[in-house]
């Protein structure tokens, strides 16, 4: 996209997010979810990564995911608009693909929301609001299409997850290089959404620290509070740098380098996004511990997000291996 074209798309998404954000957990209802997803679909973002070359760069998609994460939104931008189309695009370049039956695919993951390994069980359709089918990439690059089942519980109240059929219909394969790109892209997109969430929540806590008075002073004037917010800011900046750089690598570097950068970004985000939300909750104090406050929506997103696709332990083990043995 041209710069002004991208600005336009981002502003569109920002306006959508302001309108459909959940003000509290009580706003998360079936009807509001459906309405929000319909409104998101009307923005027509599924075409961004469907063509080769794609209409939007990975960097642009990552920034959109970041924007989506800033507000508590129930919509499936990641699964249906960014991830599934990218998978179909990569598939087109690999072996011959069978047509996909569903009109609106999302992606399937292992039951614990990680990338599936060789004997993944209890598959789920992840981020499935508005989706009617789910695509699974097997460890060896085979891609299959799975039917959606009953809703699967998750602590993230905003994320739609459903069970998916164990048996899938083959739709093609992706090459090992494309598989690395796919994993890197998925890690970056998921990390980006968490970066947006952590950044926005820390910003809200900064605003609150300015307004909230105790002992006749705004609490933001107390050094203990300032240092906590400063530390949270450092963590958010670290997440941002790692994730945006990894997104750039997807557009500019080899799949191998892009995957390393994406793993680094996800590992940083896994721990730091949660820490940053903790700091923000501490600044908000008692009110942040209630059901009606948005804090727990952010915490739930970060907490589940930190285990999605790859856990910290998965990533650190890989990143501890010497160059050339990974």
């Amino acid at each position, binding site marked *: 996209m041209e*710069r002004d074209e*991208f*600005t336009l798309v*981002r502003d569109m998404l920002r306006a959508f997010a302001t309108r459909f954000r959940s003000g509290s957990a009580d706003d998360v209802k079936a009807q509001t979810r459906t309405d929000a997803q319909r409104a998101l679909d009307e923005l027509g973002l599924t075409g961004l990564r469907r063509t080769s070359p794609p209409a939007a*760069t990975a*960097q*642009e998609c990552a*920034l959109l995911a*970041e*924007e989506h994460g800033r507000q508590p939104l129930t919509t499936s931008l990641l699964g249906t608009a960014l991830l599934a189309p990218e998978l179909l695009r990569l598939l087109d370049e690999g072996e011959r693909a069978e047509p996909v039956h569903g009109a609106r695919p999302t992606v399937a993951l292992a039951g614990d929301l990680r990338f599936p390994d060789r004997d993944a069980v209890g598959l789920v359709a992840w981020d499935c609001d508005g989706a009617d089918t789910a695509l699974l990439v097997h460890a060896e690059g085979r891609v299959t299409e799975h039917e959606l089942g009953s809703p699967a519980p998750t602590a993230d109240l905003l994320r739609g997850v459903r069970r998916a059929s164990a048996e899938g219909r083959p739709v093609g394969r992706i090459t090992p290089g494309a598989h690395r790109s796919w994993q890197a892209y998925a890690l970056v997109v998921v990390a980006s959404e968490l970066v947006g969430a952590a950044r926005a929540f820390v910003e809200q806590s*900064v605003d609150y*620290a*300015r307004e909230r008075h105790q002992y006749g*002073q*705004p609490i*933001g*004037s*107390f*050094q203990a509070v*300032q*240092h906590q*917010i*400063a*530390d949270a*800011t*450092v963590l958010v*900046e*670290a997440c*941002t*740098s*790692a994730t*945006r*750089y*990894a997104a*750039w690598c997807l557009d*500019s*570097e080899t799949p191998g380098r892009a995957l*390393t*950068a994406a793993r*680094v*970004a996800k*590992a*940083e985000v896994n721990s730091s996004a949660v820490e940053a939300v903790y700091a923000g909750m501490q600044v908000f104090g008692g009110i942040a511990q209630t059901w009606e406050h948005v804090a727990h929506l952010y915490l739930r997103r970060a907490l589940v997000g930190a285990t999605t696709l790859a856990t910290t*332990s998965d*990533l*650190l*083990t*890989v*990143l*501890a*291996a*010497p*160059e050339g*043995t990974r």
Partner: protein
Amino acid sequence: MTDTPLNFGDPEDLERLRHDFRAWLAGHPLPERPADEPLPVFLHRWHRQLHSGGWVGLDVPEQYGGRGLTALHQVTVSDELGARGAPGVPRIGYLAHALLRFGSEEQRRRLLPRMLSGDDVWCQGFSEPGAGSDLAGMSTYAERRPEGHYIVNGQKLWTSYAQYSGLCLLLARTDRAAPAHTSISAFLLPLDRPGVTVRPLRAANGDDEFCELFLDDVRLEEFERIGAEGDGWPLAMTTVAYERNAQDTGHLSKYGLLIERLRRAAHERRGTLPDGLLSDIGRCAVDYQVLVAHARRRTAERLAGQSAGPESSVDKLLMTRAEQRLYETALKVFPEELYGEGGEVLGDYFYSRAASVYGGTSQIQRNIIAKRLLGLPVGPRA
């Protein structure tokens, strides 16, 4: 912070530079360091060698002895040195930027080429016994005489490698009454000037990097002042901002090399490693690579016109996190350094403890982030 895509560099252009640099390195291997040669002497030889190939000051304009390229080019050279386990680029970026911004045209033309080539070795006289991170507490005084010159009296501390330096970027108060941010001026002090005494100070790791500097009735000429009277504060802020960026200090290559050493050691001792050590190494790799990404983002932002400012406090805290965790982990991987004669890792471990103190303590960095970056209200003073 920008919310549109950032240019992290033109891969082809930088690849070409990387290729040229590799070719040059192949013909100019790292010099040997005799056992009795002090580190700064060895690094100075390396500095001159790099300069002879045109690899110092890539982002300094050509008329001042640089190559007029971008900071990303300098980053690429740093990366490549790190990947080879060579010492980093000379740590003069922050001094060069202070001169570029505050020096007169005459000073830039006279001083920068000699700084880049290593003909002049500089040190930095900012801290004092009564004022470390608190520059406003500085008491070194430069009294202006009616004839125009200055007479300087005072004491500086933590002046790294002053005993190997010829010039010092000195901060001194030129007005005792005015507030700190308008009363400090910067000078160029030749260390052989009468009245200057340099005394090395032994650090916890055994090295004598740090020095004390005593100034007794030292005469400085008006042309040796950098910038206008009272420019010392903004000059110091610019200097420390660059000094806090990992890319400018050349620390990155040093970290990268050690991490690869830790990975290999862990790989060889698979199965016998203490619990959690592999995760610790992975965490160090993440810290390091986040720092690389962060430095690149800062560089890209700088190229997009953003100057180094309070954001550099974020950089400093990230660098401190990476460095302290790295050397703590290194001591776990090489515990023998604790029980034998010690070694490089133990020495660097001690040095890493200083990371949260030098260049402004971690607490000062947090204050800067809270007040200047986030605009939080000023707190009650105790």
